[in-house]
């Protein structure tokens, strides 16, 4: 994962994706439903019928209706809704809560609603019949507004309303063929049957595309899922995708597409704590990376998160803060106490809180909600505080799957995610309950250090992919002006923090002073000695000079004496007139 991330450069990755899209595709009719078009690679097969099936209350009618309404409003494809179960009035009322104004669409000739009433007790059969009436009815409706889309909800009701299933089967087969000939994109809904997708085995007739909806309850929480069972002539996502029904209609989350093709930037963003930035190669986290802050209770995980949030807001980025244990006002108050004022950012609209209990919905629904909130707010930073509260009972596998998808989504969107995780004090620090550690790019571990009758906090970087980072444990202080990181004392007596560190530091200071004084004294002594020696040298030199002068004088006298002696001898010789060689001697003595 990390290797790919490092190697991937933005442009080639994008090109690869474009190439894949460029292949010829089956013509498709976009549904306009969030996510469904992504799973199906563009929508339902155009001009063909699609079967949507599932149990009671799983959202078949709604999906079909949204397909029709979006078609009419967004894609200029009018549609016919033929209802076999709900009256037009009921339908209109039911979907009004989703913001669909059917009355208006009907008045503008964008949609035709036709309620088919069948009452078995009023019908007697005599001889052969066919469903030509239904064909005529549907044909009239389609032609009246030039419909391109048709919904038959739920056509299987015919089986309970009309006798002779053999005729019905033949007629339905004819109907689906006829719809294809008409070139309308149709959705046929069917109730889930025993061992079959639908009670009457409609999947045998409508086999171009089959979508199964499911509404499951586990651990008392419900989640809706959608799966494309079959799609002839097209690739499609085959997983079960969670989907949501809310005031905006249906949204399906195709976040299981773990393509691992996200672009990794080398942009770095500050953690909000200068010293922590310094520990992370001097620049902070990578943009778009996943950061995990784990630690035991009360070690300051949320404070780190708040710092990061504030730093992001200061840069003018949007931050989405999902809180699962504290209410927004509680977070604001608590962070205020350590000097982080988040209120202005909330007011400015840069910081948004989403606080709800993990048990408020199923995991998939949570994922869907988060996905939706992120898509709507478009934040640069997302904070989840804390992750482990999702673990209820033994749903760890589910939680991991959910978080993996969420992380993947964040990465694709280039959103930096910061997650906190509470480690049970008995647990191993380097392990998360939700087992997502392998997905994390930067992992900070906060730990409580018990020593000398007090509890202090320590911070270390367990890993940080793709950057040089400090291997040192720092003491983590919560002051009234935020988080501060200090060097811990590592000495002969081990790692010291808190007052022990302070004491040790004071002792060290004293020792150091003594040491310094000693050095000073020794230096002074040396200087004195030097001076004394210098003086001695001067004195000796003076003595030497004296001796030198004296010896020179003696030499001078001796030379003078020598000369006199020679002169004396010469004079003597001259006076004696000894011989002719005396001339030479005169010359030599000069």
């Amino acid at each position: 994962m990390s290797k790919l991330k490092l190697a991937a450069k933005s442009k080639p990755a994008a090109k690869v994706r474009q190439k894949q899209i460029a292949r010829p595709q089956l013509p498709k009719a976009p549904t306009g439903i969030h996510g469904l078009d992504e799973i199906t690679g563009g929508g339902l097969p155009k001009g063909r019928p699609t079967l949507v099936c599932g149990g009671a209350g799983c959202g078949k009618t709604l999906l079909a209706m949204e397909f029709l309404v979006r078609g009419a409003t967004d894609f200029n494809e009018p549609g016919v809704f033929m209802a076999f179960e709900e009256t037009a009035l009921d339908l209109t009322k039911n979907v009004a809560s989703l913001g669909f104004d059917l009355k208006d669409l009907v008045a503008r000739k964008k949609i035709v609603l036709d309620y088919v009433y069948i009452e078995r007790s009023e019908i007697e059969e005599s001889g052969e019949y066919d469903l030509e009436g239904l064909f005529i009815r549907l044909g009239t409706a389609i032609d009246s507004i030039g419909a391109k889309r048709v919904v038959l909800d739920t056509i299987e009701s015919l089986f309970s309303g009309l006798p002779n299933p053999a005729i019905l089967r033949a007629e339905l087969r004819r109907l689906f063929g006829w719809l294809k000939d008409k070139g309308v994109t149709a959705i046929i809904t069917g109730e889930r049957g025993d061992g079959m997708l639908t009670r009457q085995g409609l999947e045998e007739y409508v086999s171009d595309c089959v979508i199964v909806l499911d509404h499951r309850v586990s651990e008392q929480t419900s989640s809706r899922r959608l799966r494309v069972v079959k799609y002839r002539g097209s690739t499609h996502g085959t997983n079960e995708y969670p989907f949501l029904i809310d005031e905006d209609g249906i949204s399906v989350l195709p976040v299981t597409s773990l393509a691992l093709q996200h672009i990794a930037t080398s942009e770095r963003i500050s953690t909000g704590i200068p010293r922590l930035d310094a520990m992370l190669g001097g620049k902070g986290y990578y943009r778009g990376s996943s950061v995990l802050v784990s630690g035991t209770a009360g070690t300051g995980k949320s404070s780190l998160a708040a710092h990061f949030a504030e730093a992001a807001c200061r840069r003018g980025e949007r931050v989405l803060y999902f809180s699962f244990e504290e209410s927004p006002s509680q977070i604001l108050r608590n962070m205020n106490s350590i000097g982080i004022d988040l209120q202005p950012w909330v007011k400015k609209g840069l910081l948004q809180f989403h606080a709800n209990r993990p048990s408020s919905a199923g995991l998939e629904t949570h994922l869907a909600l988060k996905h939706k909130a992120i898509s709507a707010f478009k934040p640069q930073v997302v904070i989840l505080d804390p992750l482990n509260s999702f673990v209820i009972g033994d749903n760890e596998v589910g939680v991991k799957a959910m978080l993996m998808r969420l992380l993947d989504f964040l990465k694709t969107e280039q959103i930096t995610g910061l997650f906190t995780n509470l480690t049970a004090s008995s647990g191993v620090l380097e392990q998360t309950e939700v087992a997502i550690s392998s997905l994390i790019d930067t992992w900070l571990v906060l730990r409580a250090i018990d020593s000398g009758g007090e509890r202090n906090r320590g911070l270390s970087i367990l890993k940080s992919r793709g950057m040089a980072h400090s291997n040192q444990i720092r003491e983590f202080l919560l002051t009234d002006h935020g988080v501060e990181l200090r060097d811990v004392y590592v000495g002969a007596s081990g790692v010291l923090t808190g007052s022990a560190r302070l004491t040790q530091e004071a002792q060290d200071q004293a020792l150091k002073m003594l040491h310094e004084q000693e050095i000073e004294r020794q230096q002074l002594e040396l200087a004195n000695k030097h001076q004394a020696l210098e003086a001695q040298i001067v004195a000796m030199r003076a003595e030497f000079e004296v001796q030198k002068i004296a010896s020179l004088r003696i030499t001078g006298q001796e030379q003078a004496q020598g000369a006199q002696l020679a002169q004396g001898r010469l004079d003597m010789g001259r006076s004696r007139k000894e011989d002719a060689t005396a001339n030479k001697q005169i010359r030599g003595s000069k």
Partner: protein
Amino acid sequence: MNANPTRPALPKATPRKEEGSRYVLRLYVAGKSPKSVNAIANLKKMCEENLQGRYELEVIDLYQQPQLAQGEQIIALPTLIRKLPAPLRRIIGDMSNTERVLLGLDIQKKT
């Protein structure tokens, strides 16, 4: 679209099974299809035999008046609707089974 999407309002109740009560019948067919032709022939024969002089039969071709299909809640063809006497009754098929038609219309077969 149908303003009242439920079934069409019932005609006012008249005493039923009364000897000599009038039958108002409507037969919806689809053009000249074999089933339609058969249904018309079978029904006319049955009416002449059992309801002579006290019935009114209207044959409606939905190909000609397709908009009636929705208003009358027609799905299957041919469909025979007994408008009067109340309550409304529907019989679908080519009317080949006279017994069933008579039963459906609640007519005592003449012996």
